[in-house]
Every structure is written in C-alpha cells, then in structure tokens.
C-alpha cells in the first residue's frame, strides 16, 4: 500500500485517518467528524452493491467472450460508488469518468447502455439529460471542468441556497487519483473555489492509475489538495458505504446551500487490473490485493446485516435472483445492441450536415453499396 494515510487499520481509526463508520469486521460505530447517517436502508444499499458487482462480473465475462472490446472493472469500489450515488438528489447532475458503472446503476440507467461504448457500437450510449448522468469521459480530468461549468450554470439559474430540497441542485464530479495530476483538474478546483460553486469532487483513490501507484502522483493525501485551493477536503473509507454516503450527502447539502465545493477522497482499491486489457501482475504484488480483499466493501455490510438480524435468507436469495435476471438482461442486451449506422458519424458531426460532408457521405454510401461486387472481383 503506497500511502500511510490510506491505511485503514483493523479496529480503531487514527483520528486523521479516513472517516469510517463500518469496520471491515462489520462493526458499526461513530466517527467524531461526521454524523452517522440515520434512516438509511442498509439492505437496499447492500443489494445495489451486490448487483453492481454482478454487473461488473458479467461485463468482464462478455469481454472474455469477445462481445466487448474492453471493460474497466469497478470491483472493490462498489461502496464508494453506491454510497456517493445514494446521496444524490434527482435534480443533481453527475459527471463520471469511465468507471462509474455503480453510479450509473443507482441513477437508474439501463446497464446495457453502459456496454455500447466498450463494444465499439457507440461513443456514448445514453441520453445524459434523462437521468442527469453525463456521458463517460475518457480523457483524464476533462470532465472536472464540465462539472464546474455546469455548476456555474446552476448559480445563474438560481437553483442553490433556496432551502427547497427539490429545487436546490448540485453537481457531483467523479475523478480518479491519477486525475489529480492533470492541469485541468487543478483548474477545476480553482474555479470551483474562487466562485464558491455548488460542486462536489468525489475522488476514488483506488491507489493506482494504471501501473502508477499513488506515490507517483502525490506525496500527500488527496484531501489536502483542496485546502490548497481554499475548500474542504474530506477523506473517507471508500470501502465503507456509510461513510461514503454520509460524506457525500453532507458535501452535496453544503453545495446546494450555496456554501461551496468539497473534495471527497474515498480511500479504496482497484481489485482488478486497470481494464481487461491490462496485466496488473506486471506492476503490483498480489499480497497488496489480498490485503484489500480483506477489507471488501460488500462483505463488511453483509456481516453487519446478518449480525444485526435485519435481513433473512430470503433477502439474499432475492438478491441472487435479481443478479441472475441482471446477468440474463446484460447478455441478451449486449448481443442485441444495435450496430452503429455508417451514416451516423456524418449525421452527428454538425447540427446540419455541411455540403462537403453530404458529398462524402454519398461517396461513402456508394462505396459501401458497391463493396459487395467489388469485394468479389478484388
């Protein structure tokens, strides 16, 4: 593990460690820095984490079967994503990276729509306005500025600080630990700070940016960066769904009230390789992964739910059924994703296709049409 501060030791937390309510052993306890969220549907949280994990596993399987070109696995980060997503109000806007399948799920996206990008049948896959969940952004850091601009729009729309929970709106921007090194991310922090914007930056510090451990990006914890720009940074145990939810909820409330931005560092771990195309054994010891497996975000909530008697066997059986349904849905959905139309790039480059592009499309169509014959002779 590359960082001292990231260490979530078994048992008691050091006062300056990440905020934690739920220990890896499933013991629920207070943290002096944040209130334990009340009226939380813990069984629902666990169910969503489980389903999201299954979504991820199925996508990996689809990649192995050649149905997807690539898949960036979220495994290990279910608590961070589901916890953050549960804190969102419907009107809030989300700017994800390319790994927030769990947030997409909680936002109510059909998970099949997440596959098109990695299948190569689309560059997008869903309408970002419908569920207020922006398209995935692959260029590291770029989405942080889009979130900032959107938040500038919220200020101008006067939908912050009214006290009306169904009206006041915030932006939740996701980023990885690697994104902290891009200039654009730092510009986003600065703009958010200076304008006191209603934006929450949620950094999943999964300890790795492909093969680069966090120590390549920084010598101090993520949360400290925010202070340098003049807004709060909050480290939370990213494998504790309650800590993630509580911290994000507080930060979003702060943002909606007009009190400005927050940077949350969810200390977590990328259990799988960077993507299915990556080979993590080249750069990190399996012992490290094992260590983090022991802090599994699902397991600790399962232990807690079981011990507290809140759920019964039927609850787990129901989850298993839903997982099966999800798997079937994903497999069928993936294979029946529509092939992209050859005309679509031409049609979607501009609002109205310029004459030259029309000419090129016609040429392209003619070429494709003649392809059958030509293919035969040549």
């Amino acid at each position, binding site marked *: 593990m590359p960082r001292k501060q990231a260490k979530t030791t078994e048992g008691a937390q050091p006062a300056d460690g990440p905020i934690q309510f739920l220990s890896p052993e499933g013991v629920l306890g207070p943290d002096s820095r944040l209130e334990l969220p009340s009226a939380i549907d813990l069984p629902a949280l666990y169910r969503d984490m489980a389903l999201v994990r299954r979504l991820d596993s199925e996508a990996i399987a689809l990649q192995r079967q050649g149905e997807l070109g690539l898949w960036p696995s979220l495994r290990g980060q279910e608590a961070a994503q589901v916890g953050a997503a549960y804190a969102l109000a419907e009107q809030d806007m989300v700017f994800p990276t390319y790994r927030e399948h769990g947030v997409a799920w909680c936002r109510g996206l059909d998970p099949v729509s997440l596959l098109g990008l990695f299948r190569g049948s689309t560059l997008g896959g869903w309408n970002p306005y419908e569920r207020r969940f922006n398209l995935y952004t692959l260029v590291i850091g770029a989405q942080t500025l889009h979130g900032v601009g959107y938040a500038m729009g919220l200020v101008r729309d006067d939908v912050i600080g009214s006290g009306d929970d169904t009206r006041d709106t915030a932006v939740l921007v996701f980023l990885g630990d690697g994104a902290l090194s891009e200039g654009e991310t730092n510009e986003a922090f600065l703009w958010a700070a200076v304008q006191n914007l209603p934006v929450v930056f949620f950094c999943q510090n999964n300890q790795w940016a492909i093969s680069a451990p966090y120590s390549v990006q920084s010598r101090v914890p993520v949360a400290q960066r925010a202070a340098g720009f003049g807004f709060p940074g909050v480290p939370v145990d990213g494998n504790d769904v309650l800590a993630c939810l509580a911290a994000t909820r507080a930060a979003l409330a702060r943002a909606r009230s007009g009190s400005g931005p927050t940077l949350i560092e969810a200390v977590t771990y990328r259990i799988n390789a960077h993507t299915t195309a990556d080979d993590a054994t080249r750069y990190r010891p399996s012992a490290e992964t094992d260590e983090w497996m022991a802090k599994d975000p699902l397991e600790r909530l399962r232990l807690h739910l079981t011990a507290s008697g809140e759920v019964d066997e039927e609850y787990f059986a129901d989850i298993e059924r839903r997982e099966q349904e999800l798997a079937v849905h994903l497999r069928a959905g993936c294979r029946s994703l529509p092939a992209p139309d050859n005309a679509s790039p031409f049609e979607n480059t501009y*609002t109205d296709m310029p004459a*030259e592009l029309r000419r090129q499309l016609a040429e392209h169509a003619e070429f494709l049409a003649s392809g059958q014959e030509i293919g035969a002779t040549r």
Partner: protein
Amino acid sequence: MSISMVKALNNGLRKALADDPKVLLMGEDIGRLGGVFRVTDGLQKEFGSLRVIDTPLGEAGIVGSAIGLALRGYRPVCEIQFDGFVYPAVNQIISQLAKLRHRSGGVITLPVVIRIPFGGGIGSIEHHSESPEAYFAHTPGLKVVTCSNPQDAYDMIRQAVDDDDPVIFLEPKRHYWTKGEVTDGTPAPFARACVLRSGTDATLIAYGPMVPAALEAADAAAEEGRSVEVIDLRSLSPLDLDTVRESVHRTGRALVTHEASLSHGFGAELAARIQQEEFHFLEAPVLRITGYDTPYPPSRLEADWLPGVDRILDALDLSMSY
C-alpha cells in the same frame, strides 16, 4: 453608420446578450477592462458580472467550463486574449468541444463560440500574431469563421452565437480599428463566401487579415489591365467550395493568400480541392501567397515576412505566365 470592427463586434455582442438571457461572455479581462482590445467594453456594466465573466487566468478552464455551461443550456461566448494563448485550451476544444455532439449521437449540442483575435501586423511580441486557423479547420465538429470588415463582424458574431455548433470565431486584429458602414439589414448566410470584386482573369481567394491586401492587389492589377476576382471566404469550415469553383471555373486561375505558414496552411486544402474539381479548367496551378515555414518573426521583420500586395502581384504574374 461608420464604425470600427471593434465597435461592430461590441454592438453585435450587446445585441446577442440583450436578445437571449442564455448568452454569456467569459474570458480574461473582459469585464471591467472591456478586454485588451475593448471588444467587450461596457458590457459587464450593462449586463452584470454573472453574464460577462472575468475568469481566472486559465484557457482550459474557460473552454472546459463553457462546455459545462452549454450542457446546462447556456450559450457561452469565450474570449481567448490572443491567438497564441489558445493552445492551453486545445485539449478541451479538440477532444471535447468538437466531439461531444458526435459522441452523444446528436443528443448534445454545444453552442459555444470561441473568439480569438488572430494574425499579425500590429508590431506585437511573440505569441501575439499567430494564425492557428488550419488546426481548427482540420478538426471535424468545429465551425471556423473570420470576418474582414465591420459589417461582417457585426453580422457574423451574432450568427455565431445563434449557431448550435461550436464556432471558432477569428478576429483579424490588425483590422480591428478599420472603420466601415454597418447596418441592421439581412446578413449574408453564415457559411457563404462572398465575391467582393468580380473579375475574369484570375480568382484571388483571401479571408480575414488578408482581404484588404487582396482587394488592393486587384486594384493594382486592374491598372495593369488584369481583371482579378476577389473572394472573401468568411467561413473556413465549412468551406463554401461552390463559390470558389464557380469563379475559378470562369477565370481558370486561382491564388490563395493567408498569413499562416505555407505548409499545411489553409491554402493547401483550397489548392487540393481546386486542382481536383477544376482540373480541366485550370490554366495555371493554384498558387499560394503565405507566411513562411518559420515561427512568426520579431515584429521588426513582420512587414517583410507577411505576404502583401507585392507578393500577390508577383504570384499573379507567375500565374498569368502559364
């Protein structure tokens, strides 16, 4: 009313701000100061600092947050202070602004305008005289336009704001203070080139900074009995090839002039198109009169380095000699 291009742009932006509450201006020093060229003079006072925004000193931030504002339904008009300072924003422009419509299958429209004072000839220091138009014209998803006179400036800036696609709006800074009549009539179509002077012997194609020199060259040529047609392209992307072809088809000779370096400059595409489309009608190769393949020189050299009337006329001689 005869006003400068700066004033025409200022009027155009004022009208855009007044017509649509979603229009915002943003950039470095555009508020209190009114921009280093005063294009936004008085607009912050009139429309408030929420609509005319003095931004931090970060071009990526300007364009990146403009994208976010557009996603929220706004129509931001960004000012990049000088041509040479657009490069920190290029990642947001090329990978995000130009591509989001395509990426989203047409769901997202980004009506963002990026205003850039461009070109040389004003005795300025390094990075203040660049001609980056070819970079943007080579980027699908962007529209790239420029104006050469106050009337076009006034009309085109409003058309750019109204356009639902991202527009790189290049302002030829050396003509900022040139005056001309500006009226409120029906503007020429946004993406249409304009034949500024008709002629029969050769077609001289220019845009933005080089248009006055092109007209001057045509005048000089006329004195020597040569009839030169002058086209002001106005829209660099999309390119109004019809107007160009129609002219060259008649004249059989084409010359292109721009300040940017020769190699891979805007003229290359024009030459490539014309030689292909009008192959049988060309009496001479398409000739280019441009800046050289060096970085922009110190300003004491710029008068010689930049293409001008004499070089255009030499090229015309060469063209006619075929």
